[in-house]
C-alpha cells in the first residue's frame, strides 16, 4: 500500500510540470476558443460576452475574402508540397552519391532552414524587388529586368513558393537522406548486375524503400505550408491586391494571415476565432487523410 502511494506521488510529480503547462496554454485556450467562436467576443477586458450561436460561421462562409483565401491556401500548399519534395529528393540523391565534398553540400542545403521565416521574407523581398531586375538589366533581358514578381497577383504566389522551398527543402532532404542511407546497397548492386537501368532501380527498389519517409515528408510539408505565416508577412504582407467575384482581395493573404487580419486589423476577434476553428478542422482532415492514404500505399508497396 505504502509503495503504491509513493508510486502515485512520483507519477503525479513527474507528470505535473509538462502536463500543467500543456493544459494551460493549449487545452484550456482551445476550449475557450471554441466557446468564443460562438459569441460576440471582442477581447476587451470587462465587456460582457454574448452568445450568438453559429452566426460567426455563417458570416465566414458568405465572406468572399475567406473563400478566396481558402482556395489560395490550397493552391499554395499544393505547389509547395510538390516543389519542396522534388527539390529535397534531388538534393538527397546528390548528397548520397560518391561526390567530392558531399558533407559541405549537405550542410549548405540545410543552412537556409536555420533562417527564420521573417528574416528570410525580407531577404527574398529584396531579391525580387532589387536583385532580379538588376540581373535582368545586366544580362540585357528586358523581360527579367521588368519582372516585378511581387506586384503581379498571379506571380507573387510563385515567389512565396520559391522562398519557402529555399527554406524548407534542406530540412526535408535530411529525412530523405536518412531513408536513402537505409536502402541496402546489395539490392541495388544485384539489380545492376541483372541489367536494371537507373529508372528501373529507382522505381522498383528506392521508391518502395523510402515510402515511409515519404509519408513523413509529405505530412510535414503539407502541414507547414498550410500554416505558413512568417514568410508571407515579411515577403508580401498579403499583397498585391486582386479582384475576386467583384471584390478587392489580397492575393497572398493565406488562411493563417487572414485569421490574424480579421481579428486584429478589422477588430473582429470572434469571427477570427471562428475561422481559426475551421482552419483547425480543415488541417486535421487534410493531414490525417494524407497520412491514412500514404500508409495504405506504403503497405501495398
Amino acid at each position, binding site marked *: 500500500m505504502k509503495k503504491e502511494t509513493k508510486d502515485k506521488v*512520483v507519477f503525479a510529480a513527474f507528470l505535473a510540470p*509538462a*502536463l500543467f503547462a500543456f493544459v494551460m*496554454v493549449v487545452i484550456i485556450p482551445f476550449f475557450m476558443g471554441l466557446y468564443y467562436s460562438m459569441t460576440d467576443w471582442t477581447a476587451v477586458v470587462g465587456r460582457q460576452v454574448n452568445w450568438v450561436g453559429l452566426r460567426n460561421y455563417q458570416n465566414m462562409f458568405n465572406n468572399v475574402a475567406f473563400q478566396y483565401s481558402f482556395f489560395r491556401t490550397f493552391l499554395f500548399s499544393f505547389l509547395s508540397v510538390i516543389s519542396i519534395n522534388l527539390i529535397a529528393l*534531388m538534393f538527397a540523391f*546528390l548528397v548520397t552519391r560518391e561526390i567530392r565534398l558531399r558533407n559541405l553540400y549537405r550542410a549548405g542545403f540545410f543552412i537556409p532552414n536555420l533562417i527564420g521565416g521573417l*528574416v528570410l521574407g*525580407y531577404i527574398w523581398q529584396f531579391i525580387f524587388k532589387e536583385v532580379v531586375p538588376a540581373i535582368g538589366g545586366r544580362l540585357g533581358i528586358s523581360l527579367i529586368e521588368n519582372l516585378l514578381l511581387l506586384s503581379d497577383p498571379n506571380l507573387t504566389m510563385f515567389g512565396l513558393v520559391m522562398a519557402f522551398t529555399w527554406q524548407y527543402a534542406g530540412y526535408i532532404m535530411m529525412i530523405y537522406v536518412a531513408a536513402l542511407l537505409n536502402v541496402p546497397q546489395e539490392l541495388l548492386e544485384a539489380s545492376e548486375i541483372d541489367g536494371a537501368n537507373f529508372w528501373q532501380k529507382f522505381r522498383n527498389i528506392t521508391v518502395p524503400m523510402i515510402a515511409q519517409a515519404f509519408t513523413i515528408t509529405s505530412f510535414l510539408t503539407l502541414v507547414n505550408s498550410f500554416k505558413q505565416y512568417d514568410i508571407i508577412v515579411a515577403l508580401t504582407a498579403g499583397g498585391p491586391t486582386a479582384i475576386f467575384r467583384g471584390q478587392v482581395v489580397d492575393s497572398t493573404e493565406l488562411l493563417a494571415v487572414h485569421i490574424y487580419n480579421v481579428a486584429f486589423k478589422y477588430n473582429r476577434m470572434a469571427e477570427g476565432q471562428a475561422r481559426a476553428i475551421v482552419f483547425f478542422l480543415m488541417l486535421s482532415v487534410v493531414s490525417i487523410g494524407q497520412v491514412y492514404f500514404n500508409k495504405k500505399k506504403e503497405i501495398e508497396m
Partner: protein
Amino acid sequence: MIKKKVLIKIVLQVITIAFFLFTMFPFFVVVINSAKSSLEIVTAPIDFPDQWSQLWFNIRTIWTSDSIRYASSVYSSVIITTLSLITISVFSAMAAWVLVRRKTGMSTFIFLLFISGLIIPFQVVMFPLVAFFRIIFETTGIRMLREYHGIIFAYIGFGAPLAVFMFHGFIKSIPVELEEAALLDGCSKPQIFFHVIMPILKPIFVTISILNAIWIWNDFLLPSLILGIGQDVQTIPLAIAGFAGSFVKQWDLIMTAVLMAAAPIIVGFIIAQKHIIKGMVSGSIK
C-alpha cells in the same frame, strides 16, 4: 563503360555545385549588400561594395539603433531559447517516463491528450491564450504577458506534445530490467530517472533540442503576441520586424540587420555541425 561512369560522376558533381551556388546566392546577396550605403544599394544591388569599411559603419548603426537594441535582443533570445530548450526536454522526458512505466487507463488518456496537441495549430489557440494570460493576471496578479517566464511557460506547453511523443517512443524500447536492478540496489525512483534513464535518452535530447532551438530562436507569431513588438523584452525576430516595419526602404540597414540576426545561429550551426546533422538524420527515422 568506365568512361560512362566517370562522365556521370562529373555531371552529378556539376549539378550539385550549381544547386549549392544557387542555395548560397541569397546569403551572398545579404553579405555584399550589408556593406553598402543607402544609395549604392539601389543603384548596384549585384555588385561588390565600393568600400567594405561601410560594413562596420552599418553594423555600428544597427548596434546602436534604439528600435533594434541588438545586444539586449540577442540576450533575450538566448535566455528564452536556452531556458525553453532545457525545460521542454527535462519536463517532457519526466512525463514520458512515468507515462510509459505506469500502465493505467489514466496514462493512456494523458498520452493521447498530449498527442492531440500535435494537430492543434497555434492559430486556433492564440487569441484565447492571450486573453487567458490576461485573466490569470487579473485573478492572481501573476503577470504572464511581456515577461520571460510567460513566454517560456508557453513554449513548454507548445513544445511538450512532440517531445513527449518522441521520448515516449524511445523509452518504450528501454528494458525495465535495468530499472529493476537499480531499484534493488536501493535507488529511489527519481534517482533512477536522473541517473539511469536520462543518460540513455541523450541522443533524443540532442534531436529535440536542435528542432526546438531552430523553432524558438526564429519564432515570430508567438512572441509577437506574448511579448509584443517594441516592448522591453524583445527577441531578434521581433526586433527585425519592428525595424523593417519602420524603415521600409532602408535596404542597406535592413540587410545588415538581417546579417546580424542570422549570424549567431549560423555560427552555432557551423561549430556543432557534426552533431546537428547526425541528430537530424537519426531523429527523423524513429
